[in-house]
């Protein structure tokens, strides 16, 4: 059976997302290891002075390009592919999607320019009253708005499909991609309000001051579900693609996979205050309520762990795997797309543990803004997400370009070096955090660092060096693949795992949008309404801007 043919124009369009994503990763990742080297006492920033003024400018470049640009562009490309391929239907209006894409590109350029000119060294959280050049805020706004426009293009494509297929179940990859986009659409309202009502007019001189506590609250309204916007595309691949690639396995439970996506939509926004447990201006009752709901959002992740591992086990047993754990060896480890995502998944177990600790209300007193936090999110966004996206690109780029993956063996080496480097880096960061080391500090120079931290700081640098190597291999593979003269013999097969139970036999309420979207909005009103109402009623725009870098 021939697979659905995505048009050449659409492939090129999806590919341009991946291109921008990889370019951002190339620049951003260059600066990641420089922070790690600094911790080990090898400061390379002194050699970069003509271009990059400080550790913090480098850290801003790293955070903005990797956490915001690489992820968002890769995700919008991957979701677009999933909707087209899942629904077996072209984009309803590709012009609309292209407008969205170009808005995002213009936004990235507008935001990156002041960062590279040291006019926006505010890190990727841009907490006021640190005041960046207005183009930084304008650029971020355009990236968000552009992603909305692209998402709307996906929604009208879905509505067209739904009109012609009123009683069919939405195919899983399209369904899950649309949920991810709707989550993004809802949660980005926080940062949109923050920028449009405070930061942008303030940076333009239209208002005198900002309210930093209110700004933080808007920011984390978006900031936590942002984590799920990064993670869910990786989940889509783990649920519905990886079992197929790993050994022709089936998705263990289609219904629970769908239910967990709905739970992420409903639960991931009204918990943002768990990033503000130690903020002075948020009443503890809201902190506590948000912590309880955060425990709630851990639940669909536990379901995901079961379904994904069981689907992989199904693949392993199909390949003749035996025993409680020995079947793992039968998975298709020689395929770099598989190895990357399995290794990403293994480290995500530890990322989940750290995340649960962070979210556990007063336990956060031990961890807040310590090195534990970057240790944690380098397991989640920088491994579970990034290494999975790298794995996806190992089949997606050959699929989109018709060019063979260059040196699959090196791609496998890349996955393993990322895994090893990240274990060394992240483990030492977690331990340093528990010992009391703060994050966002050039610890190689900080005057208060006790001698007992030194061996861990060296390991941070060592892990960074291995990651630097791994990142470089990835970029070479991407470049050599995109320009490879060797073409694939026939179109790369898109890995889609069937479900064990026919999705049509699942309950219809799992394919209805209204109740879930209303539940999500209702919970946001309940969990954020009173606290935001109070803050806005007592708003004090008393903080002028500062440029202290």
């Amino acid at each position, binding site marked *: 059976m021939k697979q659905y043919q995505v048009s050449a124009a659409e492939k090129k369009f999806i590919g341009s997302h991946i291109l921008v994503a990889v370019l951002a990763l190339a620049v951003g990742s260059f600066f990641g290891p420089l922070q790690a080297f600094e911790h080990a006492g090898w400061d390379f920033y002194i050699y970069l002075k003509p271009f990059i003024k400080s550790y913090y400018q480098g850290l801003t470049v790293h955070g903005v390009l990797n956490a915001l640009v690489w992820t968002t562009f890769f995700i919008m490309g991957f979701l677009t592919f999933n909707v087209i391929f899942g629904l077996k239907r072209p984009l309803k209006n590709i012009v609309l999607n292209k407008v969205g894409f170009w808005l995002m590109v213009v936004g990235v350029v507008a935001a990156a320019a002041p960062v590279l000119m040291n006019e926006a060294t505010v890190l990727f959280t841009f907490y006021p009253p640190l005041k960046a050049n207005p183009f930084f805020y304008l650029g971020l706004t355009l990236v968000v708005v552009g992603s909305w426009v692209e998402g709307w293009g996906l929604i009208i494509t879905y509505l067209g499909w739904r009109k012609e297929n009123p009683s069919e179940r939405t195919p899983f990859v399209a369904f899950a991609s649309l949920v991810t986009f709707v989550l993004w659409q809802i949660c980005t309202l926080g940062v949109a309000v923050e920028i449009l009502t405070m930061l942008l007019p303030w940076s333009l001189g239209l208002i005198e001051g900002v309210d930093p506590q209110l700004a933080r609250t808007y920011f984390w309204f978006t900031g936590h579900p942002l984590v799920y916007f990064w993670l869910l595309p990786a989940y889509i691949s783990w649920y519905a693609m990886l079992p197929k690639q790993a050994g022709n396995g*089936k998705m*263990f439970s289609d219904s629970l996979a769908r239910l967990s996506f709905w739970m992420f939509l409903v639960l991931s926004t009204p918990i943002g205050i768990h990033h503000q447990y130690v903020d002075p201006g948020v009443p503890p009752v809201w902190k506590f309520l948000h912590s309880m709901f955060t425990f709630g959002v851990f639940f669909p992740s536990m379901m995901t*762990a*079961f379904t994904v*591992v*069981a689907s992989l*086990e*199904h693949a*392993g*047993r199909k390949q003749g*795997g035996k*025993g*409680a*754990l020995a*079947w*793992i060896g039968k998975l298709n480890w020689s395929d770099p797309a598989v190895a990357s995502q399995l290794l990403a998944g293994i480290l995500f*177990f*530890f990322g*989940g*543990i*750290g995340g*649960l*600790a962070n979210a*556990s209300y*007063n*336990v956060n*007193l*031990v*961890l807040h803004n310590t090195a534990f936090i970057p240790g944690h999110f380098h397991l989640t966004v920088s491994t579970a997400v990034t290494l999975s996206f790298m794995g996806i690109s190992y089949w997606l780029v050959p699929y989109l370009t018709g060019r063979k993956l260059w040196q699959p063996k090196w791609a496998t080496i890349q996955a393993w070096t990322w895994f090893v480097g990240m274990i060394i880096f992240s483990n030492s960061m977690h331990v340093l955090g*528990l010992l009391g080391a703060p994050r966002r500090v050039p610890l190689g120079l900080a005057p208060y660092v006790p001698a007992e931290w030194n061996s861990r700081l060296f390991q941070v640098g060592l892990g960074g060096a291995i990651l630097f190597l791994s990142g470089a291999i990835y970029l070479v593979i991407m470049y050599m693949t995109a320009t490879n003269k060797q073409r694939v013999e026939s179109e790369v097969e898109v890995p889609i795992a*069937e*479900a*064990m*139970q*026919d*999705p*049509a036999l699942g309950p219809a309420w799992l394919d209805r949008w209204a109740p879930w979207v209303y539940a999500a909005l209702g919970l946001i009103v309940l969990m954020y309404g009173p606290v935001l109402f109070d803050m806005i009623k007592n708003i004090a725009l008393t903080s002028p801007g500062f440029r202290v870098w």
Partner: protein
Amino acid sequence: MAKKDKEDDEFRPTGTIAILAIFVVTLIAIWATIYMILVGRGGTTL
């Protein structure tokens, strides 16, 4: 679409239980370690 294979009916995810058991033990151990650090560092009252 997905037809139910006989072998799928017989498939019991025992290995999954093994992996998740290891995960849960690790989860509890790490979480409890951090919790004990919290308790050991003493009170912070309002």
